[in-house]
């Protein structure tokens, strides 16, 4: 197993061109070299609207199994370059069989939703400890105890529909109080509800942006162990939708994204001028804002945690890969159930 967390190169500079130079990638803009880095250190490359890789670079990355993802200026997924489908056809067959079996889907989905609830709850509980307003603490604790009730109901959820229902209720509880974890003047970073396509406030713009990046990391994790990122268990199959990546992501939303977003806001690293309002009331991050957020996210991925099941130290960024591996082991029949990632309280 590769113990190394390979880096991701994000190219945001409009008009930037990345080309293959020997065993390195060379990024240029307006005739100036922005960066030259050995491909050896890179696990994936992400291009934002207006930046492009050369054809030889795409071919080389596809051949090595290094993912290239294209996002538009707002961070929405556009396209992905993949090489020949390799790996284990038996594993994918097992995945398709499990995906077509309602009972097994519900089992995997239940484990994932339980971890999502636990991880979200940990974040709210920590927020309640630091919250300065009595009213906020109260609301956070109340949401946590409701989520605890949902958690105890989960083992009895025998169909996928019921599991999805629990997940929906938990998400509503979570987002209804998340604003209380923010310690900034409400005029700057108010959060009332989750809004997407498009995000309608600054917090939602931050969340949407990093969830898109996390999705692309989870697609990479699924591909990395030879799973089909489109065939999920909790999320329904739909053309073009990376359902399995969305499944894997559920455990990591709170510990990988929400935590980074709240940290950036509460430490006053992200500022109102990192956002712009578009006609129609949608809110987008500026180029500088995105750079800041991506750096914080990449730094967070380097932090090490002890995996609760594997009992190994691993960088946070490797967690989706470790979980994809555990899922593959379950699908192959080596593990009786899928063991999701639950962050230490």
């Amino acid at each position, binding site marked *: 197993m590769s113990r*190394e967390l390979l*880096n*991701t*190169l*994000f*190219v*945001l*500079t409009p008009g*930037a061109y990345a080309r293959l*130079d*020997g*065993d*390195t990638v060379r*990024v240029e803009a307006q005739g100036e070299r*922005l*960066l*030259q*880095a*050995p*491909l*050896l*250190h*890179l696990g994936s490359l992400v291009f934002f609207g207006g930046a492009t890789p050369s054809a030889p670079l795409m071919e080389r990355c596809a051949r090595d199994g290094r993912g290239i993802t294209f996002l538009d200026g707002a961070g929405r997924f556009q396209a992905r370059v993949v090489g020949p489908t390799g790996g284990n056809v038996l594993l994918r067959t097992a995945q398709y069989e499990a995906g077509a079996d309602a009972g097994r889907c519900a089992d995997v989905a239940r484990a994932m939703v339980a971890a999502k609830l636990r991880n979200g709850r940990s974040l709210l509980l920590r927020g309640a400890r630091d919250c300065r307003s009595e009213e906020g603490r109260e609301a956070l604790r109340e949401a946590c105890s409701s989520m605890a009730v949902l958690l105890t109901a989960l083992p009895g959820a025998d169909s996928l529909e019921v599991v999805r229902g629990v997940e929906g209720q938990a998400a509503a509880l979570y987002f209804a109080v998340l604003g209380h974890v923010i310690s900034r003047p409400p005029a700057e970073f108010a959060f009332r509800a989750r809004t997407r396509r498009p995000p309608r406030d600054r917090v939602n713009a931050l969340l949407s942006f990093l969830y898109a990046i996390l999705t692309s990391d989870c697609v990479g994790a699924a591909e990395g162990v030879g799973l089909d990122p489109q065939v999920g268990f909790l999320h329904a199959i739909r053309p073009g939708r990376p359902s399995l990546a969305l499944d894997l992501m559920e455990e990591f939303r709170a510990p990988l994204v929400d935590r980074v977003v709240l940290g950036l806001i509460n430490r006053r690293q992200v500022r109102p001028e990192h956002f712009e309002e578009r006609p129609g009331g949608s809110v987008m991050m500026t180029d500088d804002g995105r*750079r800041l957020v*991506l*750096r914080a*996210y*990449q*730094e967070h991925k*380097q932090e090490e945690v002890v995996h609760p099941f594997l009992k190994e130290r691993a960088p946070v960024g490797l967690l989706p890969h470790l979980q994809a591996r555990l899922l593959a082991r379950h699908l192959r029949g080596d593990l009786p159930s899928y063991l999701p990632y639950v962050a230490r309280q």
Partner: protein
Amino acid sequence: MNIVVAYDVNTETREGRRRLRKVAKACEGFGQRVQYSVFECSLADTDFERFRRKLVGLIDTDEDSLRIYTLRGRREEVVRVWGRDGYVDFRAPLVV
């Protein structure tokens, strides 16, 4: 592991200039140029082994000189730099 690679390739002949270009190219693929013929690389053990073999295969042992210094400790602790420095940590966030 963190290493420093320094080389001297005899460029009196055409063949020597060819070797120099190849050695430099190989070094770029594994690390970064910090001085004209000095590279710093941060490599996993298996990559280091690949790199070492590649370099040893490229040089002419009668004409050239290749040195690899292994740095014990974190780079910040064992490397001190004065003057121009364009060092990039390839493990830190890469956002351009």
